[in-house]
């Protein structure tokens, strides 16, 4: 087995410089909170299936491409995201989601970058292929607490990876359109809109999924347009089909455009650990 080099001089510094540690910590806390305080179905077999599928697929990928083992951290984040968002009672479907999520990183690539957000692919494809998984968009409920917690923790991570632009653009455009439709046009009171916008699932999506630094376009300008497109599509889907998880579907369909954006707007690709 290859050795993983850990800089011994300052282990704290190495923890802090990699934003993935923050992500793991925050997502892990959300999952714990969901299970303990919100009484989620804590089906151990599902979590085991997701984690082992993700980590194993990543491991195979690392060996095959002879990359650095720190990529396992990304697989850990994908596992947590899948555990947070994807519901199923089928262990096989959970494992498949994990394999598809990480597998897509290695198989669906364009110019050295993977095209899709891994967790997003895992969720969407497992729903389409197995019919045994689903997104419980109401599982967090809605409330100010989510705006605060997910917002602050999310911004912390985004600031570190330079993707605040992506998350905020999405939220502002999606929220703005919802506001125009619900409050300005239809005449609902603002609390109806707020209830809609403070859904834990929506916030988690905005701060922890759409903003994945690797699968978003490299240039800031491109990212803003890209996430605006996702917001537009998500809004359209939610209006026509009345699907609450519309942003997750929108991200899936817009993701392939990343490659085009990267060609049009040249910028340095993202690296987790800056050398």
């Amino acid at each position, binding site marked *: 087995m290859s050795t993983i080099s850990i800089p011994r001089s300052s282990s704290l510094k190495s923890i802090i410089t990699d934003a993935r540690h923050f992500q793991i910590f925050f997502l892990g806390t959300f999952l714990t909170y969901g299970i303990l305080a919100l009484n989620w179905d804590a089906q151990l077999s599902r979590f085991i299936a997701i984690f082992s599928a993700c980590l194993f697929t990543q491991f195979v990928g690392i060996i095959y491409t002879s990359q650095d083992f720190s990529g396992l951290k990304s697989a850990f984040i994908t596992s947590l995201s899948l555990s947070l968002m994807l519901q199923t009672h089928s262990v096989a479907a959970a494992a498949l989601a994990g394999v598809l999520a990480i597998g897509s990183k290695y198989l669906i690539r364009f110019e050295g970058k993977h095209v899709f957000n891994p967790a997003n692919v895992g969720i969407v494809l497992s729903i389409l292929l197995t019919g*045994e998984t689903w997104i419980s968009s*109401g599982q967090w409920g*809605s409330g100010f607490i989510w705006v605060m*917690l997910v917002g602050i923790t999310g911004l912390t991570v985004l600031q570190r990876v330079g993707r605040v632009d992506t998350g905020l653009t999405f939220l502002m455009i999606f929220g703005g359109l919802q506001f125009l439709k619900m409050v300005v046009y239809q005449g609902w009171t603002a609390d109806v809109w707020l209830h809609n916008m403070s859904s834990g699932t929506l916030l988690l999506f905005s701060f922890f999924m759409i903003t994945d630094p690797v699968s978003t376009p490299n240039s800031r300008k491109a990212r803003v347009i890209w996430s605006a497109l996702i917001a537009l599509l998500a809004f359209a889907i939610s209006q026509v089909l009345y699907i609450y998880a519309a942003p997750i579907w929108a991200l899936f369909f817009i993701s392939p455009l990343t490659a085009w954006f990267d060609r049009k707007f040249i910028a340095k690709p993202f690296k987790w650990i800056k050398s």
Partner: protein
Amino acid sequence: MRSITAVLLLFAATINSYGFCGFYVAKADASLFNDASQVIITRNGENSTITMSSDYKGDLKEFALVIPVPVVLQESDIRIANPLIFQKLDAYSAPRMAEYYDQNPCYIYQYDMAPVLEESTDMVEKTEDAEPTRSKTLGVKIEAEYTVGEYDILILSAKQSDGLKIWLNENGYKIPETANEVLDPYIKGGMKFFVAKVNLKKQKNTGFQTLRPIQVSFNSNRFMLPLRLGMANSQGTQDMIVYAFSEKGRVEATNYRTTKLPTDMNVPLFVRDDFNEFYKSVFERSWKLEGKNVVMLEYAWDLSPMNYVQCDPCAGDPPVVADLVEAGVNWLEYNPKYNINDGQVFFTRLHVRYDREHFPQDLFFQETPNREYFQGRYVIHHPVEGQLDCDGAQEYYKTVFNRRQKELMNLAQVTGWNINSYAGYLDEYADKAGVKKVKQNSLLPADFNRDNEDVYALLTILLMGGVCFSVIRLMKTIK
């Protein structure tokens, strides 16, 4: 452990007073009650069938109903359902009490059969009035006009809420002031208004004393129940029981949390005497602890005709195919070759207690592939009566004593009742078991009712710690 066996005695929890999920309007200024309602909703692709229970007990002349619907309904989309369907579904799916008799430790093979009892629900509802309709040019268009069963029904579309409000008021549907804030959003959202009054002549001909449920069927992407209009004439909270049928699996809310009722636990014997009160407390406590903005799952089961175990234990007879069809399940196919009905049916019972503050949005649902069963089930145990004198007796009494201690703890946990006054329930067995009697007021520590607050506090501290740590780092990075 001593075996605990025998037979189940079941009760169905009764939930008081039911009504429509829609919106009652009154002509007279009598106070309106719209405390609870029962609704059946079936979903098959884009097709929804909604059946609204009616147990209106007031003057039939004064009955009037307004429900927002997403499309203009055709006459064939509206029918009258058999009122018994609600009683049947309620009795079948209500939270239940299972009763067990301990086996006598001194006579191993004794069995006792108890009869199966069933209590069904009482329904009460109150509403008011309607009068003959009169067309008006207030931007209100009568899209369709039908008489179905004992109801005169109009499907209205409107351009703006003021016109609709005036029209409704002029036609005998008294609209509360507070309805204004939702009429406009519904109109702009493309909703039509289904308004109904009782046709007294037709009603007489039906031979029924009470009004029968209205069932409407339509195709729409919106799988939802319009709660908001119903809040307009109710100050406090309202209860709604939703019986949902779908093909794939459980139905859950998409814009609110769907959470499970605490279930499957031993509770003290005396709960049997007032199971309804017990269940009310269980629901109320759970609803409060969950933040008052949740949809509570009370029952979930596979009701496909080919599934032979349709409940376990059964609180009431499971619905047969004819009941499913009555409820609006329209996707079963009769297979004459085997004389069976092909198709999957999954049943979900949801209980929503809602008010304006905690439920600002209408309730949207989705069908999930989740086919896991669920039921509200509370178990009581009858100890062996009479004097026991054999070697195993004392050990048996100890088991009973310990079990009762746990039962009381469970009771305190799920109902929030003060169990210190039930020390006698334990003491009855203290002497026999050879243990110390329980001191009054010492059953529970004073802070027992704080529940899981400690865990949440710990978690929050952890989270906040993380947040602080990150913020500090963030500041440093910015510098």
